[in-house]
């Protein structure tokens, strides 16, 4: 059960990293943000080992039950954070993203963690592609969600003429809006690919591409939301506030598709009785 140790170590490091980010937000010392990022990076490495060892122990892509999905999603989110952090100088982003990953990890920690024999429907060539595309897309949308929240706070500060501690800590509106657009540009095609590979896989597993199963319906709703945002951005020039709100709504739809559907509704995607 090596993977559980690595998983727990990663969770602990994300906790520690979130704490370091919190201290950074308060004192704004550059070294603290570097420390936080280092801790999160080590956490990510440990998390990667957890996934690899679990893959080795299980013999299949470890995204087959809710514990594994949550863990995989958190891993993707942190991965996206590390990539974005290396490109954009938005140090504060980690302070928003790391706690989200931490919550997912804690949720995953509370769930049964045993490796179960692979359900027959999951035994497909397409399944790993489906989960990687879908989760990577969603992880990028998590980033858009965070930048959306930051945008609304920052815009409110600027509109109400408060140039205080909050304004100083949050990035400029332009940067946040750019993040929103970039996330959309990368996230939307990935979500689309996730849905297509899902449909292809469904065809192999159940003999049909689309079944209006609640998960499928909700991912279509999510897809439509992001498609609408992308369309409005490109044609009418939606940006700023409206784009930020859409990114937040979109991510709530993502979360509902991912978790809500399993919790509230039932369908083909509820494989395990957790």
């Amino acid at each position: 059960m090596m993977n559980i140790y690595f998983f727990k170590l990663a969770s602990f490091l994300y906790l520690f990293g979130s704490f370091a980010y919190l201290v950074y937000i308060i004192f704004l010392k550059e070294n603290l943000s570097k420390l936080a990022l280092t801790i999160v990076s080590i956490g990510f490495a440990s998390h990667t080992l957890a996934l690899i060892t679990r893959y080795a122990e299980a013999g299949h892509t470890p995204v087959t039950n809710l514990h594994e999905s949550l863990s995989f999603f958190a891993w993707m989110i942190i991965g996206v954070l590390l990539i974005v952090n290396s490109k954009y100088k938005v140090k504060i982003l980690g302070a928003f993203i790391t706690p989200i990953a931490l919550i997912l990890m804690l949720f995953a920690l509370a769930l049964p963690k045993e490796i179960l024999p692979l359900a027959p429907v999951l035994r497909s060539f397409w399944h790993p592609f489906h989960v990687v595309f879908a989760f990577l897309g969603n992880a990028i949308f998590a980033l858009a969600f965070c930048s959306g929240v930051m945008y609304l706070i920052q815009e409110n500060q600027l509109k109400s003429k408060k140039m205080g501690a909050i304004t100083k800590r949050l990035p400029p509106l332009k940067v946040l809006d750019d993040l929103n657009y970039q996330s959309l540009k990368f996230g939307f095609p990935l979500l689309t690919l996730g849905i297509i590979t899902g449909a292809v896989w469904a065809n192999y597993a159940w003999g049909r591409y689309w079944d209006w199963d609640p998960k499928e319906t909700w991912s279509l709703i999510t897809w439509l939301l992001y498609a609408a945002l992308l369309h409005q951005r490109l044609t009418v020039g939606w940006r700023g506030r409206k784009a930020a709100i859409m990114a937040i709504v979109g991510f709530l739809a993502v979360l509902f598709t991912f978790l809500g559907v399993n919790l509230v509704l039932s369908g083909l995607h509820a494989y395990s009785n957790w």
Partner: protein
Amino acid sequence: MELIVVGLNHNTAPIHIRECLAFPENKMEDALRKVHTIPSVKENMIVSTCNRVEVYAATRQTDKAILDLKHFLSQYHGLPLKEFEKSLYSFMGEEAVKHIFRVASSLDSMVKGEAQILGQIKSAYEMAVESKTSGLILHRLLHRAFHVAKRVRTETKIGDSAVSVSSVAVEVAEKIFGTLEKKTVLLIGAGEMCELAARHLVSRGVEKVLVTNRTYDRAVSLAQEFKGEAIPFDEMNQGLRKVDIVISATDSPQYLIWHDQMAKVIKDRKQKPIFFIDIANPRDIEPRVGEIENVYLYNIENLKKVADENIKDRGKEAQKAEAIVQDEVIKFVNWYHSLEVTPTIVALRNKFEEIRKKELEKTLSLHPNLSDKEKKSLEALTSAIINKILHTPSALLKQSNEEAMADLYLDTLRTLFQLPEASPESFDETKEKENGDAGI
């Protein structure tokens, strides 16, 4: 040699006097040379910015030199002294050192913590070096001032967010646009307020300036100053569609930009954000314009309020900066006092004497059988050697007391022989980068 400064700044003189006394860059060399011909002044440097005009000098006759410099300012600019004398301040010695350290560290600026002043002082110093009007004292002083400014900048947060209204405007703009590079600004009105605000934005990277004014000619002439473009007043909307920042400062009694008008313009802009700065009184822009999405409207009161809040935050940082300045003033003054002839000769003699005694003791302990007489003649011999060696330099130093070279000799002696009080380690400028561009 004593350091003095005579000058005026934004606190002591109104803008029209500052403008009258300013030295344009192309006449700077001439002015420096003219000051150099004043007999009481040994070294000099002139700092002339839009907020201050100051002449720094090294002299042996402080009171006379201060008076001479005041008359120089009056004569050079053709302005009777009594018209601006009450705006002038003058400092000497320690106070003058403290003054330039504070100026260079931006503690004396209208916008405390703004970084521009350091560059202005650096170029003023370079001018003095090129015109050969600076010498050892100003050289050391300025390098020290650059060092102090660097310390203040890195050890305090004073420069983190500037305080003045136009700096706050820049700060807000940077929170909206990220950077001001490649941004365009539209000036409505061609008055001084607009010009000043625009200059600040341009210094922070704004690329293009458009100007509109009721009198088109004035718009054209102001636009030329910024190498920008003038637009007719009734085609203002065309400008509003293009630009990122608008500064409005007209004396129009009614609004010039209305909510409904702007709501249309923002659609044409495809929602590209726009930042209005309304510094007019009464206002030029209907306040409801600020309610439109992607439109940010700040008036002069909003900016002032933010600036005031910043100052409160900054009290502590300013104190820290003042402490650094004080610390550096003490170090500098110690060095500077050591540049006196008598104490230097005494220190040199003491140093030689110390060496002589040590070496003599060593020799005597090697030869315990020497008679008292022999010991005495050894003593006399060594003393005589030292006296002979020191005689010529001491005499020369005393003679050169009145010449500018004296300071150079003294400083060289102190450095070569590592004499105390000069605290050579604190003036080890070879470690500092600034030394490279000094040309001395």
